[in-house]
């Protein structure tokens, strides 16, 4: 276990144990963000590789203003978004303002016990994957960072380059969108 400063110092000395700690601590986190955005495992691994290599290059100039995890997430987020833009040059359209109305919930059946009662773990995962795949990217990144990675709103805003209030709005929309998607597929069993 290293403190942030110890980790940076030992990484600068190219200590193999520090590298192992870095990889074990952060590779899956960065991968989850990239895989969630790109929906492509190989591309997500490419983003992990790119992010770590970028950190190695910058180690001597790493000033510690951001935590290593925040720095890695931010580099990975930008790399994933670049790859998405290359795939879909018109993607900026998805980044319209957040001030449109919040859609009212449509499905009002209580499906809370359906996953545990009727679905296997693999089936639940498939439903979650299907739901999150449909989520717009700008909401997806915020949802992954806040809910799956457990980061604060401030960290999430720093990583995605948006304001705290925008991060809150996007999280709110993501939660309601995913609730509605899961309701569509699970309420029929309720």
């Amino acid at each position: 276990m290293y403190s942030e400063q110890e980790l940076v110092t030992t990484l600068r000395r190219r200590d193999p144990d520090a590298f192992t700690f870095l990889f074990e601590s952060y590779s899956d986190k960065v991968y989850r963000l990239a895989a969630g955005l790109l929906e492509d495992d190989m591309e997500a691994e490419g983003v992990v590789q790119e992010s770590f290599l970028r950190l190695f290059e910058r180690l001597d100039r790493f000033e510690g203003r951001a935590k290593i995890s925040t720095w890695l997430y931010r580099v990975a987020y930008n790399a994933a978004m670049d790859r998405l833009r290359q795939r879909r040059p018109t993607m900026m359209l998805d980044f319209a303002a957040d001030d449109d109305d919040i859609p009212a919930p449509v499905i009002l059946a209580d499906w809370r016990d359906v996953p545990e009662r009727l679905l296997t773990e693999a089936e639940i995962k498939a439903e979650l994957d299907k739901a999150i795949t449909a989520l717009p990217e700008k909401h997806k990144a915020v949802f992954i960072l806040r809910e799956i990675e457990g980061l604060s709103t401030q960290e999430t805003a720093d990583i995605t380059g948006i304001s705290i209030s925008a991060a809150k709005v996007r999280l709110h929309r993501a939660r309601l969108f995913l609730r509605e998607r899961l309701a569509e597929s699970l309420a029929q069993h309720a």
Partner: protein
Amino acid sequence: MTCEELLQYLSDYIDQNLDEELTAAAQEHLATCHNCRVVLDTTQQTISLFREQGKRTIPTLRRQRLFDQLQDAFLQAEADC
């Protein structure tokens, strides 16, 4: 509090970010509005499912390969210094 307002404040209510007055108003509304109660409960369930099941990891074999490649690059940088 109306259903529309409850929906607007739902995430702040879940995250316990509302002040006392708004929290009380939300609780009062939720006590009598079945639909908003369902929306709250199923939104919380949605969040729980993703928190519990959303933690995928790099597949084992590819993880080892990635570790090796990055370790080589990391140690190579020392040799280059």
